[in-house]
């Protein structure tokens, strides 16, 4: 596509990168067809092609983001379905990330909007604060209708409460695991931020399974949120700070004893960590280290697929496999999780419209609760057609989102199912026999 940037504007490396991306777009429109918000709203402005055009116009003009541009960019889930569809290889993710950062710098949001975003940015990425907030949410949950009636922020606060699980998850179990011999690998597992508070059982399952398979897990002091949550809000500096902290934590391990992989059990985080190399490309002190971290980052199913797990007897359970957008579009991991589950004895069905987002998308289900709710219900409708016992998914965001819907079947993390199939406890979310 033709672009029209000034030479001065192109002096900025981020602008140069975006120009390069825009030049690869041929405006063919294929991306509109697989965009969740376009499917719901039928307005090109709420499609990747429309957003690319809005972003192009904003960046080319060097003008501050307008209310309209912000509205349509905010409605983007960053599900990256468009990137899977795009024949021209347009890197929409980097373009929209740039646009969000640009918006953050040039646009003043309304006070309630600022309040909500600051609240989320200050709580979600921090496990202690998140756990405290979750506890508060549990207490407040019965008051959801009242909260919903609050002016300006009520709808979003209510959406937040709706996502909180019905009861407090058990505190992280302390297990001493014997690592099977011979030891086959040495890895770190991302602890992250929200997941240990919402569902500590996921990483616990990964640890048990790894131990049985002879994979040693080493702790990485200083590691925390991957930065995705603030990254998607356009808070670029905050995101980079999280990224640097994690790069430091894992680099210490890499340089002291080495790491075979950095295993991630939340695909949303995985997509971001795999992008650290790009995010920190202009930071001379970090570029190389970040690229190394990105290269070691593996989704847990990617890593498990390298271990040749033995086939397990039929489990008598039929699953729908819900592929998180960050999994299938962000990381292009499509068949591996299903193959692992089938090999582990589960019957696995694909969800119709599997390429369409469930509406979770980081904080999207709080900030754009209405669209997110419609996407969730559409997804649950598609799952219901399959008549399955449970849903397997590889991302905590999707698990929380789908579980919040009315009549949702149990939604369980892939690694919990695998752990169960290979000798671990039955996942708690599954109904008792």
């Amino acid at each position, binding site marked *: 596509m033709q672009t029209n940037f000034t030479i001065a504007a192109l002096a900025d490396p981020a602008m140069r990168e975006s120009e390069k991306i825009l030049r690869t777009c*041929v405006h063919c429109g294929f991306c509109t067809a697989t965009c969740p918000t376009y499917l719901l709203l039928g307005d*090109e402005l709420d499609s990747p*092609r429309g957003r690319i055009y809005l972003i192009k116009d904003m960046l080319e003009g060097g003008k501050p983001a307008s209310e309209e541009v912000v509205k349509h960019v905010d409605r983007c889930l960053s599900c990256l379905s468009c990137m899977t569809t795009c024949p021209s290889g347009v890197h929409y993710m980097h373009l929209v990330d740039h646009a969000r950062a640009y918006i953050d710098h040039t646009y003043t949001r309304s006070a309630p909007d600022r309040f909500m975003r600051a609240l989320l940015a200050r709580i979600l990425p921090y496990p202690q604060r998140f756990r405290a907030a979750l506890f508060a949410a549990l207490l407040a949950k019965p008051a959801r209708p009242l909260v919903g009636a609050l002016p300006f922020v009520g709808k979003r606060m209510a959406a937040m409460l709706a996502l909180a699980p019905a009861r407090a998850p058990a505190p992280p179990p302390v297990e001493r695991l014997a690592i099977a011999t011979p030891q086959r690998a040495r890895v770190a597992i991302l602890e992250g931020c929200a997941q240990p508070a919402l569902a500590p059982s996921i990483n616990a399952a990964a640890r048990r399974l790894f131990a049985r398979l002879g994979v040693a897990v080493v702790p990485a002091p200083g590691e925390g949120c991957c930065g995705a949550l603030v990254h998607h809000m356009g808070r670029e500096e905050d995101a980079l700070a999280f990224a640097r902290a994690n790069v430091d934590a894992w680099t210490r391990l890499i340089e002291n004893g080495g790491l075979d992989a950095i295993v991630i059990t939340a695909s949303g985080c995985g997509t971001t960590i795999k992008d650290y190399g790009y995010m920190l490309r202009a930071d001379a002190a970090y570029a190389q280290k970040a690229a190394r971290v990105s290269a070691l980052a593996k989704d847990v199913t990617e890593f498990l697929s390298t271990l040749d797990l033995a086939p397990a007897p039929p489990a008598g359970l039929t699953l729908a496999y819900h592929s998180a957008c960050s999994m299938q579009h962000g990381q292009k991991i499509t068949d591996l999780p299903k193959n692992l589950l089938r090999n582990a004895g589960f019957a696995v069905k694909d969800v119709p419209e599997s390429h369409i987002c469930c509406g979770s998308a980081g904080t999207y289900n709080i900030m754009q609760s209405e669209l997110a709710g419609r996407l969730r219900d559409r997804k649950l409708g598609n799952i219901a057609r399959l008549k399955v016992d449970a849903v397997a998914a590889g991302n905590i965001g999707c698990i929380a989102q789908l579980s919040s819907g009315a009549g949702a079947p149990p939604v369980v993390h892939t690694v919990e199912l695998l752990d169960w199939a290979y000798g671990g406890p039955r996942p708690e979310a599954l109904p008792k026999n």
Partner: protein
Amino acid sequence: MTAIAFPKPDPAILARRDEIIAGLAALVPPECLVTSEDERRAFETDALTAYRRLPLAVVLPRTTEETSKVMAFLHGAGVKVVARGAGTSLAGGAIPQEDAVVVGLSKMSKILGVDFADRSMRVQAGVTNLAISNAVAADGFFYAPDPSSQLACTIGGNIGMNSGGAHCLKYGVTTNNILGARMVLADGAIVEMGGDWLDSGGLDFLGLVIGSEGQLGIVTEATVRLLRQAEGARPVLFGFPTSEAAGACVADIIGNGIIPVAIEFMDKLAIEICEAFAHAGYPLDAGALLIVEVEGSETEMDAQLQRIVEIAQRHGVSTVRESKSAMETAAIWKGRKSAFGATGRVADYICMDGTVPTSQLCHVLEKTDEIVKHYGLRVANVFHAGDGNMHPLVMYNVNDPAEQEKAEAAGMDILKLCVDVGGCLTGEHGVGIEKRDLMRHQFSEADLAQQMRVRAAFDEGWLLNPAKVFPLDGRTIAATSAR
């Protein structure tokens, strides 16, 4: 770059913009009306991005009735209308103009009914081509025309451009697969053409409207013909050392009375581009590739393939590779159908769409190469060989005005060549703005005047998609050529 002229916007309309928008706002809710400059910008072009015009406003009606009200209002106000489906036109068919309102059908994406006994389906015009087939695939049916943009393009747009696709060698194009349609005329009147039966009597208005590029009305609903899927389908890759050998093989297959479902052609550059995107196993060492698809039971496909392979061997085929799985088949077609977009990874391009008699394929390929080389550019060829519908992709740098001019000149030369060897300017993309000024190369003044009089019978004021199809300068002829 402005080689293709647009009419000067009507200042009287521009001056009444606020009033026009207020009128529209009274007819549709805010989420169906786009008025801010930032937002209108996204509708200024389609897939022919070298040309752009900011529309006066964009309306996205949700029903036929809403469309009718909008059209009646705009007609009364004397405002021009440009219909838009998914905006995937490669010919600029949906490019607006400053004094026109875009009426977009993207919110009308409902499937209204499926009838397997009568093999038909009623849909709103904004339903995508692929969504139609997807909705009935589990029951073993499909909708036949399959333009490469089928994932995104709408049935309304397909009707506007009489779209084809890879499989129309056997199944025909849009006009052969639509049974009925509801259309809103320029003044807002709603007409029903055809039905869910074959061959409605009277003048074939449906046939006239299909391919009329939004100049006769806005189609809001259509009844499409469904076909039963074959028992099996198998694409086979045939690699040839040269384009000439591949072209001669195509002529020979058809000359032998074999009509495969599809025969697609790619030259070396196209093979490289598509393989890099789709990893379909296209032979990178071949000078040209044919994708030939056969249908039927396993035995039937084997028998037909055997005959095709024998013919291909006579033309020195270097690679023959059959798809062995549904996944391979999908990859083979994904590569072909993404060819244009994938070319975008390499360079900007314009895509020509002339059709030539199949006996002229080799000659035209050779000449195309000469033409493009003459302008110092590169060309990738990927097209529907079975029916002679060429798609040379002339590659250039759109940010370089001199190159754009050369690319367009090369494109025009290629299209003239297609007409000169007995073909036509456009096989399935439509005339749009892109080929408008070449129409006199294919048609006489009398031919064009007759078409324009028919057009005027539907839209006396030339309000519907007015800058398209017909040369801008000849339009008075329509009114004055009566004897």
